[in-house]
C-alpha cells in the first residue's frame, strides 16, 4: 500500500528530479540548508550582493575543480594543482614585465606553463604507467623548485596586467562579475565536451575500465594525456585569475586549492574511482565548499575550528551518500 503511494508521489514529481543523481540533490539541499542557517545568523546572507560575491569567489575554485574533475573521471588524481596554480600566476605576471608584447601574451603564457606541467603528468601516467598520485606529486615538487629558484624565495615583484585584473574583477555585463562569466563559459564547454563529444564518452569509458576502452580501439593513452594537460592548463588559468584578483602572484597561493578542489568534485557525487559523475554535481560541490568557508569566516570562527568543521562536514556528507557498495 505504502509503496504505491510512494510511487504515486514519485510519478507526480517533475521528470528532472526523478532522473537526478541523489548525490547532486543532497549537495544542493545542503547549500540551501547552509544559506538557511547563515540567514538565521545574519540577514545579509540572503542579499544578492553577498550571494554574487560568493559566486565570484567560488568561480576561482570552480575553474580549478573543472580540471580536477576531468582527471578524477579518468580514475586518476592531480596533486600538482598547488604549484600549477602558482606557476600560472607567476609566469603570467613575469611575462607582463617584458613590454607590450609580454603584456598581450601574459595570460596565454601562464596557461601554457600550466599545460606543460600537465603534459609531464600525462606522459608519466599514460605512457610510463606511473601511478598518478606519485607523478603529480613529483611534478608539483619540481614546479615548486623551479618557481623558488626563479623568484629567489620571495613573492615576485611583477604585478598582474590590466587584462588579468579585468577578467577577475571587472564587469562586462553590469551586475555580473567577469569571473562568474568565465566559470560559466568553461563549465558550459566542459558539459558539452563530456556529454556531446566522443572525447567525453571516452573519458567515462576509461574511468570505468581502461582495458575495455583500449580493446574497443580507443587510444586511451592520448586521452589520458590530454586530460592531464587540460587539468594543468585550467589550474594555471585559475592561478592567472587569482593573480588578477589580488593583482599579484604569491608563493603559496595554490596551497589552499588542492584539497577543496578534490573535496568539491567528490562532494558533487563524482566517484573518486572514476567513470561516474556529472558537472552539475561539481558546481554544487564548489558552491557548497565556498559557502561553508565563507560562513565559518563570517562567524569569526578561528582557523582551528574551521579546519575541524570542514573535515567533519566532508566526512559526514560522504557517509551520507558517497559510500562504496558492501563487498558481498
Amino acid at each position, binding site marked *: 500500500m505504502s509503496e504505491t503511494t510512494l510511487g504515486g508521489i514519485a510519478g507526480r514529481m517533475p521528470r528532472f528530479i526523478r532522473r537526478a543523481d541523489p548525490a547532486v540533490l543532497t549537495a544542493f539541499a545542503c547549500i540551501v540548508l547552509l544559506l538557511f542557517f547563515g540567514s538565521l545568523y545574519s540577514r545579509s546572507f540572503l542579499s544578492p550582493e553577498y550571494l554574487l560575491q560568493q559566486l565570484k569567489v567560488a568561480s576561482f575554485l570552480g575553474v580549478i575543480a573543472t580540471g580536477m574533475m576531468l582527471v578524477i573521471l579518468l580514475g586518476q*588524481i592531480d596533486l600538482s594543482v598547488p604549484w600549477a596554480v602558482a606557476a600560472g600566476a607567476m609566469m603570467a605576471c613575469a611575462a607582463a614585465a617584458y613590454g607590450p608584447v609580454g603584456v598581450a601574451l601574459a595570460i596565454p603564457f601562464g596557461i601554457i606553463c600550466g599545460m606543460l606541467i600537465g603534459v609531464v603528468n600525462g606522459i*608519466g601516467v599514460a605512457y*610510463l*604507467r*606511473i*601511478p598518478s*598520485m*606519485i*607523478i603529480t*606529486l*613529483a*611534478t*608539483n*615538487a*619540481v*614546479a*615548486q*623548485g*623551479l618557481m*623558488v*629558484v626563479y623568484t*629567489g*624565495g620571495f613573492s615576485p615583484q611583477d604585478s598582474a596586467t590590466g587584462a588579468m585584473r579585468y577578467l577577475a574583477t571587472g564587469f562586462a555585463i553590469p551586475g555580473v562579475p567577469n569571473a562568474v562569466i568565465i566559470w560559466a563559459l568553461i563549465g558550459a564547454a566542459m558539459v558539452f565536451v563530456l556529454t556531446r563529444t566522443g572525447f567525453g564518452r571516452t573519458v567515462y569509458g576509461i574511468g570505468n575500465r*581502461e*582495458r575495455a576502452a*583500449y*580493446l574497443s580501439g580507443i587510444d*586511451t593513452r592520448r586521452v589520458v594525456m590530454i586530460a592531464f594537460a587540460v587539468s594543468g592548463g585550467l589550474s594555471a588559468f585559475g592561478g592567472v585569475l587569482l593573480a588578477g584578483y589580488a593583482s599579484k602572484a604569491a608563493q*603559496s597561493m595554490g*596551497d589552499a586549492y588542492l*584539497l577543496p578542489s*578534490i*573535496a568539491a568534485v*567528490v562532494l558533487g557525487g563524482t566517484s*573518486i*574511482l572514476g567513470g561516474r559523475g556529472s558537472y552539475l554535481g561539481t558546481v554544487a560541490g564548489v558552491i557548497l565548499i565556498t559557502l561553508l568557508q565563507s560562513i565559518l569566516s563570517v562567524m569569526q570562527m*578561528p*582557523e*582551528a*575550528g*574551521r*579546519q*575541524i*568543521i*570542514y*573535515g*567533519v562536514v*566532508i*566526512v559526514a556528507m*560522504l*557517509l551520507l551518500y*558517497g*559510500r*562504496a*557498495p*558492501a*563487498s558481498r
Partner: protein
Amino acid sequence: MKDWRYWLAEQRGTLLAFGIFIVMFVIYTSNHPAGFTANVVQTAANKGVLLAFVAMAQTLVVITAGIDLSVGMIFLLTNCLASWLVVGTPMQTTLGVIAVLAVGLLCGAINGAIVIYGRLQPIVATIATGAVYYGIGLLLRPFPGGSVNEDLADALTGRVFGVVPASLVVLLAIVLVIWVPFSRSVLGRAAYAAGSSETAAYMSGVPIRRGKFAAYTLAGLLAAIGGLFLTFFTYTGEAAYASGNSYTLFSIAAVVLGGVSLFGGKGSAIGAIFGALAFRTIGDLLFVFDFDPLWQPLFQGVILLVAVSLGAFALFRVRNRLEWFL
C-alpha cells in the same frame, strides 16, 4: 633448493632501497667537512628517523592498497600534544608519553573505522580527517611553544655508549616490537592479502576487515611515535600546516623509494625506512656540496621525479599490452 631466490625476489625493493641509501650516505659523509664522525651520523640519524617513522606508518596503510594522507597531521597533532603532556616528574612523563601514543592510536582507529566500516575511499576520507587533526593541533598550539622533559629528550636523541645514535636504537626497537610481530601475524597477512586482491582474500575467509583496521590503527601509533620524537628534537610543539603536508608527501616518496607498491600487497616497512633515510640524505647532499639553498626544492623534486620514473622500466618486461592497465 632455490629458497634464496624467492627470498631475493621478495626483498628486491628493500635491498634496492638499502643500496641507494648506502651509496648516498657514502657520498654524503665523504664530502662532509667533518667526515664520518659520530656527530655527523647522529645528526643525520635524528633527521632521518622522523621521516622513517612516518614512512613506516604510511607503509602499513599502503600495503592494504589504501593511502593515508593524514599521517603528517597526526604527526603534528601528537607533537603539539606532547609539548603539553610530556613534562614533569618521571611518572608524569611516562603517563604523558602513554597518552600521546593513545591519541595516535585513536586517530588511526578513526581513519580505519571511516575507511573500512564507513566504506569511504581512503584518499578523500584521510584528507578530511587530516584537516580535523590539524585543526585540533592548532587548537592545542595556536602559537609555537611548550616544553618537554629534557632529560628524556636528550637521552633519546643522544648517543648510546658514545657511538650509536639513540634514535636509531629506538627505531630498531619499534621495528622489532611493532612491525615484525605484525607482519608475521594473521592480521598482518590479512592486510597483505587485502592489498593483493581483496576479493580473493574475502573469498578465502581471511579477516580482511580486522587486518586493514589493525594496519590503519598501527599507522596512527607509528605517526604518534614520530610526533613524540619531533618534540624531543625541537623541545616545542608547533602546528605548521606546510610541515605536516610535506611529511605526508615525503612519506609517500619514501615508501615508493623503499620498494612498497602503491597498488598494495607488496613491500615492507624496512624498505620504507631505508627509503626515508635515503630521501633525507639526498635532500642534505646539497648542503655538503655548498649549493645555494634556493636550489634545494628543485633538486629534491628532480630526484623524486627520476626515482618514480625508474619504476617505468617494468614496462620493458610487459609482453601483453593489456598488462599496461593493471
